[in-house]
């Protein structure tokens, strides 16, 4: 009986050690960062951060975006279209700071001030690329958001052909 | 020892309350031979039933060897009754389809004894009750006296210290009644506590009766 008691205690020590060691080593991708009251975009680690909507790892800053709520909760997206889907479900949209990574100047820019193309190759495939400089085919943030919510993007087969032929 | 304190058993109907037993106080020491005497309906059988724990009173206590048996949960009460109390009923209550031997062995089943021990006890009881010659006969084939002796053997087989008899001679002829009395006398010599409920005058002349208790209209007089 004494041997069994010692054996139980030994097992407990081993089990707690394994769990403790695993907790220390734990390395899950980030989905949200809280307390970002500077409302500035966070330089998140690629392949360690998840898109809030599609739950995929963000592997490139190209096409990525961030949304920061009034409370400082920062959400990440690997496609601007995903951010628009997320934004639609939020209350107090105007108070949310939106940032996009521009494809021409490679920096974070206020999404409401950026310009958007409609035929870019993006991660999920919605087709909206963010640019700091306006060009002939680019549209504003509100136009991009409206098109995204109406389904007028590259993932819509009815719209895709006309978009690619520049007839939309 | 059996202690009965302020025992009451009554039945309520729409108009009134009928007392089968009222304010019974009685103490019976070990080894006593007690006769409960009274006419039919006086409460003798009710008192025996309450002592055996086969019914619950409305108030009061029944203690056997210090154990308040009325308060015991059913499983404990059954076990207590099996080990301490043997009952001989007026109408024998044998299992007609079983043999005499099996009828006597039945109370030993819950005691989980070995087959050897069961056989030993059954044979002893058959001997005391003078029914050994009928061990293999079916209970349905016995005469009244033989059935009564089988019932006695069954009451003894658990080595119970208390034997309760409810009108044991009511269905017997004279010869069998005398045989029954001889067996009771044997049991009394074995220091069993015996309580007999009867209005048979054959018990009037017994010199080994230690106490007479008369019950009239549910009260001890």
């Amino acid at each position: 009986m004494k041997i069994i008691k010692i054996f139980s205690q030994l097992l407990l020590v081993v089990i707690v050690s394994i769990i403790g060691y695993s907790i220390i080593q734990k390395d899950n991708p980030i989905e949200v960062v809280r307390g970002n009251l500077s409302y500035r975009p966070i330089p998140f680690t690629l392949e360690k951060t998840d898109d809030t909507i599609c739950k995929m790892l963000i592997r490139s800053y190209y096409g990525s975006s961030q949304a920061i709520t009034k409370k400082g909760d920062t959400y990440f997206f690997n496609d601007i279209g995903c951010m628009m889907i997320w934004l639609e479900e939020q209350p107090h949209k105007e108070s949310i700071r939106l940032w996009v990574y521009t494809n021409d100047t490679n920096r974070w820019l206020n999404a409401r001030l950026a310009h958007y193309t409609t035929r870019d190759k993006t991660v999920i495939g919605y087709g909206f690329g963010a640019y700091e400089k306006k060009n002939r085919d680019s549209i504003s943030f509100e136009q991009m958001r409206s098109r995204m919510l109406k389904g007028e993007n590259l993932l819509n087969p009815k719209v895709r052909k006309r978009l690619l032929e520049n007839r939309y | 020892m059996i202690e009965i304190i302020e025992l009451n058993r009554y039945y309520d109907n729409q108009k009134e309350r009928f007392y089968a037993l009222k304010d019974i106080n009685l103490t019976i020491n070990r080894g006593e031979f007690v006769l409960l005497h009274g006419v039919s309906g006086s409460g003798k059988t009710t008192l025996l039933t309450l002592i055996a724990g086969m019914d619950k009173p409305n108030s009061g206590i029944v203690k056997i060897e210090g154990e308040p048996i009325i308060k015991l949960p059913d499983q404990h009460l059954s076990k207590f009754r099996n080990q301490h109390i043997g009952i001989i009923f007026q109408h024998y209550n044998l299992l007609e389809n079983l043999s005499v031997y099996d009828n006597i062995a039945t109370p030993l089943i819950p005691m989980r004894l070995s087959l050897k021990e069961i056989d030993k006890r059954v044979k002893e009881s058959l001997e005391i009750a003078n029914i050994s010659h009928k061990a293999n006969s079916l209970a349905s084939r016995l005469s009244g006296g033989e059935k009564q002796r089988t019932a006695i053997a069954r009451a003894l087989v658990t080595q119970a210290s208390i034997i309760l008899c409810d009108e044991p001679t009511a269905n017997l002829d004279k010869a069998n009644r005398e045989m029954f009395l001889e067996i009771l006398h044997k049991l009394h010599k074995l220091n069993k506590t015996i309580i007999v409920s009867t209005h048979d005058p054959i018990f009037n002349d017994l010199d080994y009766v230690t106490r007479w208790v008369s019950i009239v209209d549910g009260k001890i007089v």
Partner: protein
Amino acid sequence: MGFYCGWKNCIMNSILLNTNIAIFLLAEWIVWFILFIAFGVSIYILKKWDFQSYTPTQYKLEKYAYLVMVILVFAFSMKFILLPYFVFTMDKISDIVPGAMCSAGVISFNHYGMKLFFVKLLILLLLMVWLMINHYDLEAKKYPWFKLKGWLYLVIFMLISVELYWDYAFFNDIDIHKVLNCCSTLYGLLEGVNPLPFGLDKTRLLILFYLLYLMILSSTFSKQYFILSIGLLLFTIIGYYSVLYFFGTYIYQMPNHNCPFCMLQKDYYYIGYLLWGSFIGGIFLGVTTIIANLILGIDTQKLKILMTLLFTLFIVICSLYVAIYYIQNGVFLEPVKVEMVM
């Protein structure tokens, strides 16, 4: 779509007319009703109970107490049958609800589902504790835990009443025109995310699985109830995840199929009932054993042996599926990585 039930514009969901649901709800109502009677009598008994008394009131209470105990043992036995029947019912209606492939989709349909399921498990655990206390209370002759089990019953009855409402609300809220999630959406691996608790990987998870089993056995029979408590708590978590993310895949023979409910279906010979039944039964018996020993001060050999048998059955079923797969195929299952094509 519903039907008008004729009282103040109340509309009831027509899914309530499904045979399995109707039987289930009717059974729940009947059990609740007889427990309601026992509830009323129990309050009366608890207020006036005095075992040392020999008055007519106390004798009456003892008769009522016996009646209540018989009712409760019957009703509680029914509850043990109704939980698997609840799961079976959800599995059956997954056939008529779009998107749901098994109970997983149905149970997560609305906010009642999971909390209803957990309340049912909690009720079963408390019932088991009550039955254990009742057994030893009757064995003790003087009903030393009469009031404890009385109050416990009142708590159980409250939970059963809440459960009854949630049963109705859950099924009434199911809309067969709405697409549900299937288990791959609910339990499927999120990319890059380790779903296992404490940051464990599969190897460590399995090591813990078997070590915890050994620890539960050794602590039970060496009467180390504190270690047993920790063991049971951890085994509840580790056992669940082990089945979900390892052993379950061998039952389905699909490395990415992680669902606790699909194994309850006919396709898998209903093995889920035996597997989860032995797992949950073992946990509950373990908790009951701890309560018996620490609170009542009773050493419960029978409960310990039964718990051991159930856990052993659970371990054997899980291990056998892996062993049989390996013997048949010569390899272990490997998870398949899904890549997005742009």
